[in-house]
């Protein structure tokens, strides 16, 4: 057993005593009832379960939750799909996903949304040339699987958000 606390979307949870076998996905969904984080393949191959991890150095990255023990998140700060909208107002990315009809069933959307958010934050710190933008988006979203709309609409939505603020994201 591990005694753990974790910060999710800016709110502290815990301490909880969790079994070492407990996955982060089960912890988030079953202990905390934050069911926006999905369980898909269970093998880190679809990444519908991905959350954002905020690193101490100010950077962020995504992590699958289905193949990672909850205990490994002890003391960490993460963000889930529930944390994007503020006061009922969708984030710019969420609005772009809606405008582009990026999803149908929506099961993969939390993972795409988190990955795209991390990409935006990375580009803010390390902008890329316009010519590299499509490759950069493709590489960032590469691991995520969608079985409804394909990937173009997600790609276009993210690209539009970036192109709408070129001084921030492009070199």
């Amino acid at each position, binding site marked *: 057993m591990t005694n753990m606390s974790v910060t999710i979307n800016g709110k502290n949870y815990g301490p909880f005593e969790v079994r070492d076998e*407990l*996955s982060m996905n089960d912890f988030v969904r079953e202990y905390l009832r934050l069911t926006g984080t999905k369980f898909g393949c269970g*093998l880190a191959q679809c990444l519908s379960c991905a959350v954002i991890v905020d690193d101490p150095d100010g950077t962020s990255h995504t992590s699958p939750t289905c*193949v990672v023990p909850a205990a*490994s998140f002890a003391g960490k700060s993460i963000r889930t799909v529930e944390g994007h909208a503020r006061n009922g107002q969708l984030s710019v990315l969420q609005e772009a996903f809606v405008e582009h009809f990026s999803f149908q069933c929506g099961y993969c959307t939390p993972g795409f949304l988190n990955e795209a958010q991390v990409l935006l934050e990375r580009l803010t710190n390390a902008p890329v040339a316009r010519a590299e933008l499509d490759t950069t988006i493709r590489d960032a979203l590469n691991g995520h699987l969608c079985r409804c709309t394909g990937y173009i609409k997600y790609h276009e939505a993210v690209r539009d958000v970036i192109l709408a603020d070129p001084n921030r994201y492009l070199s």
Partner: protein
Amino acid sequence: MTPAKRMALLAVLMIVLGLPLLTEVYSVELSTALATPQSFDGISDTAARSAALFTEAGKVLTSPRCVNCHPAGDRPLQGETHRLHQPPVARGPDGFGTASMRCASCHQSANYDAAGMPGHPHWHLAPREMAWQNKTLGEICAQIKDPARNGGRSLQQILTHIATDTLVGWAWAPGFGRQPAPGTQQQLGALIDAWIKTGAACPT
């Protein structure tokens, strides 16, 4: 018929029919042994003995536990059959994955058997120039001795790496469902030590 008798009858039937028992299916196979350096003392020709020692060590070097992270391409391999890693990750500029798919995102500091996920604090791919996939033992041997392709290591540093690096050591404790590398890390170290002391000759 009681459940216990029913299970006993089922077990007898499976044995008679030659079917594997569940306990056999799910048990972890024991790693095969490595010969000791002393068992090669009968080879009088020093170079031949050295090459034979490396060939024995090669049972480990060519095992899936080693080759899967010494791939020829940019993607790691998985399983006993060296299938391409899923999800489709790539080595990235530093061998620890790409910016959006770092190895450590899934591979934590220790194995997580509940999900079949191997782990180590320094989980990463060997550099491209250290690829062992699709190479003969002779080619791997020459590569290991070449500082341009072994990370600038001396033979003594190679021995230290192989005999003491804990990421190498993961190969003998790979977690549920994976066949450990043959022998032990200590036995492999003894073979490499003897190989170096006999001139570090390569098998042809």
